[in-house]
């Protein structure tokens, strides 16, 4: 039997935690995206130390579970006196910022690989065309490489963003009360697992659906040249 009053109450309680989830999500995506850009730049630089650093970073952060990274930063880093006296302490003391930092560090590793794939997909001819027009360095990157690479990387990046939305749930394990954490608390209090699960699932489904649709829309906007051209009727040439 479905108890609608309980379902509505659960949804209300879960929605109260929505800002926390969205805050974790957007902050870590923005921060992680920036870091990934830096790491991708290092990967394509000619300086060996930077290339090796970028490779090692991706290896470590993609090779370990996010949860152990989170515990390492929340419990591990703060055990040192030098950190407790350092300027980062107000951030590292707070589980919310620890979660943001860890999520950002982790997504930076995955995104670097995605961005690298995008850059590798830039056709050589386009680079040559850009160079022959006198573009170089940052200009070449901004006008030629970045726009093409971004569009190439979007489908894979949308998968990564959905994974990040799911990953915000781990913050509940370091006492940040986002949606999954609140759901777990309600389950522990009421033992009505199925109903609470349904409500939380509904919220995540809507969130992820919106993200996927938004990125599909962005992809559509960024690739007008790949679609067949719509010719107005009065300009159509008769072929027969």
């Amino acid at each position: 039997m479905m108890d609608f009053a309980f379902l509505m109450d659960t949804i209300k309680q879960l929605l109260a935690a929505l800002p926390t989830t969205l805050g974790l999500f957007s902050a870590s995506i923005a921060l992680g995206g920036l870091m990934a850009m830096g790491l991708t730049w290092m990967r394509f630089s000619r300086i060996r130390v930077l290339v090796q650093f970028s490779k090692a970073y991706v290896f470590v952060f993609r090779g370990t579970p996010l949860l152990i990274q989170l515990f390492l930063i929340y419990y591990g880093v703060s055990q040192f006196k030098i950190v407790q006296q350092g300027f980062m302490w107000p951030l590292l003391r707070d589980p919310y910022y620890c979660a943001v930092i860890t999520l950002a560090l982790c997504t930076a590793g995955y995104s670097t690989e995605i961005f690298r794939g995008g850059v590798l997909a830039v056709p050589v001819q386009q680079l040559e065309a850009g160079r022959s027009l006198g573009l170089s360095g940052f200009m070449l990157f901004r006008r030629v490489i970045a726009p093409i690479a971004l569009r190439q990387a979007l489908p894979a990046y949308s998968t990564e963003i959905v994974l990040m939305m799911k990953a915000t749930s781990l913050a509940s394990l370091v006492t940040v009360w986002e949606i999954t954490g609140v759901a777990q608390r309600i389950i522990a209090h009421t033992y009505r697992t199925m109903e609470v699960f349904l409500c939380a699932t509904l919220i995540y489904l809507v969130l992820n659906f919106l993200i996927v649709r938004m990125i599909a829309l962005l992809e559509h906007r960024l690739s007008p040249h790949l679609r067949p051209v719509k010719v107005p009727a009065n300009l159509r040439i008769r072929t027969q």
Partner: protein
Amino acid sequence: MDVFELFGFGAKGWGGALLEAALMTLLVTLSALLIGAVFGSLVAWGKLSKSVPAKVAGDLYTTLFRCIPELLVIYLIYFGGSSLMTAMHHSLGGEGFFGMPPFLSGAFAVGVISGSYQAEVYRGAFHAVSRGEIEAARAMGMPRLKLFFRIIMPQVMRFALPGLGNVWQMTLKDSALISVTGLAEILRTSQVGASSTHQYFQFFIIGGVLYLVMTSISNRFFNAAEARVGKSFRRAIG
């Protein structure tokens, strides 16, 4: 206590416990992968079939389990299973709380998620099998089951290998979440060790290194397997 004593195999060392934990992670990941293979192939079958309800059910499964946080699925199966088992226990005249075994519920939860990713891998691999070969087998009068086991499955397994490598890595990392049910795998054991010795940093670093070792070994393994499969493909063509 120095690092060698802490992570060694002596009376106070955590080396043995951590190695056991690594074995547990390996076991639970393998079980999850197998459970996922069953779910994944059933779902892929549904998505590829001509029946509309089967298609819809398959699509629903893959969309749902790739959208919901893994932690939520683990809670559903662990808590939901526990209350179901307690209710059954009570109806048989028993008393008290009856918990789900952590290994079983964890492997099942991660397996269900792994299945949604495996379904897509198998579906993609099936599309890569050449139509002509299936038609040829049909023309020779091969029955459906034989066609599946002799023609489709061997090729699907080959084409699915790179995708399965990714799913394995993902499942291995998801297995860390089973620690919330108290199963003594790598993360849980590191947590216990860390809180009883207050050496959080060292324990989580060691735990991370164990995962890194496992992912890099399995990477090597899958690369070698792909190279081997690739060899037979080349021979078939030229």
